[in-house]
């Protein structure tokens, strides 16, 4: 098998906070801190965590909408920093995105065919006949009728608009699509349609997905691998079914126990965390989760755990470390 499509190595993004005299840098928000993952061809990485955990910043780094402070992204084995302009151009067309709100992400003044064709016009020099053919094929791919091409976004329902956004993201035959909460703005009865469509497209086109959502059941359903983020760090990453069925990190355990049951008879241990996510401006020392952790030990307050292998996944938690590694 070929190597991963996209690989993040110790990816870090800090945002400076300026204030006071001459807008000096007074603090720094560690939005993403030393995050590593890889996405194989045709596979889905699900990214979960609560607001402020850094999942959207991670997506922006992958989309090159933000420059990393440290660490690197590799695209098909090559460091993005080292790519020349034409290669970066190729990267940008290989990595596309679908956003949460299809009412905000489609220009209301453009017709559907213009919306879908826009990436084709900006990235590839094609004749108008060829563009029309590609648009027709994309509409068919996402299950919209031909006549949609001449209509405006307001003439469609939320689910259909999300299909238009998906068609646009596929226009340049990307390898990776970043799906940032693609169904949370849709009606419950429509969500399954879009999730099924995304799965069909993945099987048909061999797409890789970076799937971000707060609905854990949807993430478990869509992903091959799940990464759980807390305050800018990955605390657990591994096979989706394994992580969902037997979460190891106390935060993952609390998160999955907070997910709502699909049936009233479903009995699960309820772990209600105390307090709220601390500010990423001043993350707690040691393990960032320790002030809310039901299993916190003395050591958690002073030493940050590293990701270590534990029954089929990686976990950053002192509970699963046998010996204290000698590190200053």
């Amino acid at each position: 098998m070929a190597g991963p499509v996209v690989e993040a190595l110790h990816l870090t993004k800090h945002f400076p906070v300026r204030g006071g005299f001459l807008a000096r840098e007074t603090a720094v928000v560690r939005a993403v801190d030393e995050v590593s993952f890889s996405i194989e061809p045709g596979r889905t990485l699900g990214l979960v965590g609560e607001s402020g955990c850094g999942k959207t910043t991670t997506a922006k780094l992958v989309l090159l909408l933000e420059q990393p402070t440290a660490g690197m992204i590799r695209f098909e084995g090559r460091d993005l920093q080292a790519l020349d302009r034409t290669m970066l151009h190729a990267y940008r067309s290989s990595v596309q995105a679908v956003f949460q709100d299809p009412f905000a992400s489609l220009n209301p003044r453009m017709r559907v065919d213009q919306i879908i064709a826009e990436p084709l016009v900006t990235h590839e020099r094609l004749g108008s006949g060829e563009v029309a053919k590609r648009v027709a094929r994309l509409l068919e791919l996402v299950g919209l009728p031909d006549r949609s091409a001449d209509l405006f976004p307001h003439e469609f329902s939320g689910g259909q608009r999300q299909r238009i956004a998906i068609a646009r993201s596929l226009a340049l035959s990307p390898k990776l699509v970043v799906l940032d909460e693609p169904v949370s703005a849709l009606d419950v009865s429509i969500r399954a349609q879009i999730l099924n469509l995304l799965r069909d497209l993945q099987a048909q086109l061999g797409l890789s997905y970076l799937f971000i959502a707060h609905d854990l059941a949807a993430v478990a359903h869509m992903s091959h691998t799940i990464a759980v983020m807390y305050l800018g760090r990955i605390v657990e990453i591994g096979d989706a079914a394994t992580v969902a069925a037997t979460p190891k990190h106390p935060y993952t355990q609390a998160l999955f126990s907070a997910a709502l049951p699909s049936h009233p008879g479903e009995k699960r241990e309820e772990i209600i965390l105390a307090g709220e996510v601390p500010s990423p401006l001043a993350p707690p020392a040691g393990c960032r989760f320790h002030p809310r952790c039901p299993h916190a030990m003395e050591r958690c307050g002073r030493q940050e755990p590293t990701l270590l292998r534990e029954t089929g996944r990686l976990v950053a938690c002192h509970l699963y470390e046998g010996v204290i590694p000698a590190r200053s």
Partner: protein
Amino acid sequence: MKLLEVRHLSTHYVSARGARVTRAVDDVSLTVGEGETLGIVGESGSGKTTLALSLLRLLPPAARTVSGEIWFEGEDLLTKSRGEMRRVRGKRIAMILQDPLASLNPLFTVGDQVAEPLRVHEGASRGSAWARARELLRAVRIAAPETRVREYPHQLSGGMRQRIVGAIAISCGPRLLIADEPTTSLDLTIQAQYLQLLRDLQRDRGLAMIFITHNLGIVARMCDHVAVMYAGRLVEAGPVARIFSSAAHPYTQALLESIPRMADGRKRLTAIDGQPPDPVALPPGCAFHPRCPKVLERCRKEAPPEVRVAASHTSRCWLAS
């Protein structure tokens, strides 16, 4: 007699010149007993929020409750004067809305806002109302209530704001609490905290609750009974355990089937075809018939009546009758 008994309630929106009538709530009957929790589920435009606003008579000017009765503690709320209704709202029936930032006044302190219903409904003095406000903040588990009472909404996190709204709602000891998507804007672990808080308040104070949501998971965790709305009508209602195990209406069945479950792995979902109908132009007959996998000829022409499937389980479907 139940605490709340709604009989054949219909609320319509009428366009400016009366040319178009939208039946947002159409012939809805339901009951809530003391201390019970009823979940009302439906998609956007199904009429669940209009139903809640009809109960409190807080409808926008274009909407009218055209028929029905709302019996609450032995009185029909629809026959009450405006002044009498003002003494019901916030005192005997309280409401929590989705967005806590929109329900709190940014210019007043937390203490002022929690104390306000006590001063209005019970004529409490400023001092005693503030003392009660501090107790209420403690009841909704806000740390350091003595300092929090003097703060403004923008100084609090989303979860804390929603707990303040909860404190305001329970301040005058209501019998019924209507919560409209109260946790939609909250993070998962904060949502779990809030749902637990509501359950504890309900148990300690014997509150009845109506939970309006699109999330069947919340119904599964929180409710005793559930009413499913589709295009302004109650298509199915009954005890939660029964609806989840043997739903009678094809819409409820399809909705339950279409939700991804944690344990299913990557099994394909059963999607519902089509999309929710436009409330302004509902299909004839049963409003769900264009999307229904079990549609009969009759469904296209005649709307089905409400049929009793089992004890306290009703369905509006020709298949059930």
